């Protein structure tokens, strides 16, 4: 049986237009064999969660460089839970101080990545998360 590819939604929430990281990550993940959907810019949390459900993704990866991460990550998480889509991994990256990363992880957000991260780090992280989830499903 052909293995189902990991499906990732790369999203730019809020008004932030910095999409270099999002695009580089999206194409690196595609090269790594993931199915990648990129939302484009200026998405509301509602638009992102709708897209995540319609596209039936495993992972939502937000890229935020505007400083609005403490509002936008929790909001997307809350909407995913409201849609009973909380098995979806919410991860991402941007200009996010370490303390904020830790606080968001407490809430249930996955690992977050800062500037200078090699593209292989988030890819390995997502692969690891996916393998764990499959193992848990089999158990």
């Amino acid at each position, binding site marked *: 049986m052909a293995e189902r590819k990991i499906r990732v939604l790369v999203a730019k929430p809020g008004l932030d*237009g910095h999409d*270099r990281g999002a*695009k*580089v990550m999206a*194409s690196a993940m595609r090269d790594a064999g993931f199915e990648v959907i990129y939302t484009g810019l*200026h998405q509301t949390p509602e638009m992102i969660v709708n897209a995540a459900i319609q596209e039936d993704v495993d992972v939502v990866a937000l890229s935020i460089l505007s*400083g*609005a991460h403490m509002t936008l990550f929790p909001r997307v998480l809350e909407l995913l839970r409201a849609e009973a889509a909380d098995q979806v991994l919410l991860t991402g990256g941007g200009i996010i101080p370490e303390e904020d990363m830790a606080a968001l992880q407490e809430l249930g957000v996955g690992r977050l990545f800062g*500037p*200078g991260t090699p593209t292989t780090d988030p890819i390995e992280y997502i692969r690891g998360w996916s393998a764990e989830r499959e193992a848990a499903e089999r158990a």
Partner: protein
Amino acid sequence: MSTVERGIPVAEQRAQLEERLRVKERELAELRARLAEWEEDYAAIGERDASFTTISGEPVAPLYTPADLDADWDYGVKLGLPGEYPFTRGPYTTMYRTRLWTKRQFSGFGTAIETNRRYHYLLEQGQTGLSVAFDFPTLMGYDSDHPRSLGEVGKCGVAISSLADMETLFDGIPLDQVSVSMTINGPAIMLFCFYVVAAEKQGISADKLRGTVQNDILKEYQAQHAWIYPPEPALKLIVDMFEWASQNAPKYNPISISGYHIREAGSTAAQELAYTLRNGLEYVRRGIERGLDVDDFAPHLSFFFDVHNDFFEEIAKFRAARRIWARHLRHELGAKSPESWRLRTHAQTAGVSLVAQQAENNIVRVAYQAMAAVLGGTQSLHTNSMDETLALPTEKSVRIALRTQQVLAFETGVANTIDPLAGSYYVEDLTDRLEARAEEIFEEIETLGGVVPGIEQGYFQREIARSAERQQREIEAGERIVVGVNQFLGGNEDVHVDILRIGDEAARTQEERLARLREERDEARVEETLERLRQAARDEENVIAPMLECVRAYCTLFEIRHTLESVYGAFREPVFF
């Protein structure tokens, strides 16, 4: 044509010239022969394991000599003197010997009240100009209390939703004495009107205002993405500003044509150079189409380039930019005044070159980049702070960044002589190569039908994304070393850097300020001035006079944005990935 020039017959002149050329060719042939031997020795010794290319991927030879310059390389044609066509050596006659560059740190956060305090601090520290960073809602034309502003108010710039905020921002700062640069594009015209009226309230008329508004919408579609309207009406608004400013605010630069964001989004130096200058030429063409005299508005166009890590490539970029601009303005667009040919620029060190790992090392990166900008002949400079990969900079790191410029200006001696790298075979070769690459890219853009069709087809966006991917691949393959990222990792665990935290108080303060404003202003006047603006937009008139009336009536940013949107529509990005 006269047969005799300076008393010497033409035949004799020709003979002299031919003799000089023969000597030059003989010398070059000798040099080439010796070089061939030298190259053998070089090959026998071998090179260390590294890729010798500029950061943009241009190959770099081990040695540059006169043999690398074109046979017809001519000092007068290629370089000239500072302040003279083609301005390669600098836009002004005396450069830093009369006045050092303007040290202009980009800053803004929270509300106008907090940012006003930071501006007073920066001016006390010896900064000589101000540069306003707006928050994302302002950059997109939303008021702080608009639902789309959720979580973003005051976060990476100052929130300005109306004239009242602009008045607070410059409280106690005389706008006829301090030049102010504003980084705003989609709603540039609105913020410009806020600024003009804020000055008016200080008793200062527009003709006394010095400063710059970025107002470069083309690079927004290409790279930075803070747009509102589709390209055609957006370009119309920019020409409105050229027209109004050339008549009413002659010391003010109504645009800063910016390569910074193009480079930060991932382009190479050559792409930054070519896209920026081609955008500039587009604005000039649009002004001419409106019927403006090119020599009335071209002298007020200013530029803004990135300064990345590759020292010589960056210096060459500034020199090439001046030469290309001068030639096109003079020969393609028919500008007669040398003021129109002269490219003046602001520079900012490359934010994208900073890394989170061992963030203090960023101070060193910024210092080298700043030196390149000065050797390139910039008119003003922003140096980034070391902690900007983590958050907005603290007061301490901003001070270090400013001090970096002061060490450069007063201790290193680089400002003592004009364009000191001219005549370096390497720098001249790089300057020529960048110029040639830019001309090739201009031709590519023409085959697409110009800048706007290029944007609509996603050409710029795709090319920039490709370059960004290549650079990332090079770093991950270890072909390009970034200290602290893929080499020299010792110390990475020691990451504690103090950061500036911005809470959500700014949003609450702004909500209160806006509520009060809406209560106190004359609603009938608001409606009436907005309606007059809508009518002017429909009739394709210059919208600045009616917009100034809206601002005086304390219409908010979003109300003005929305009024024009009802006529112009909104831009929808074609998504390319």
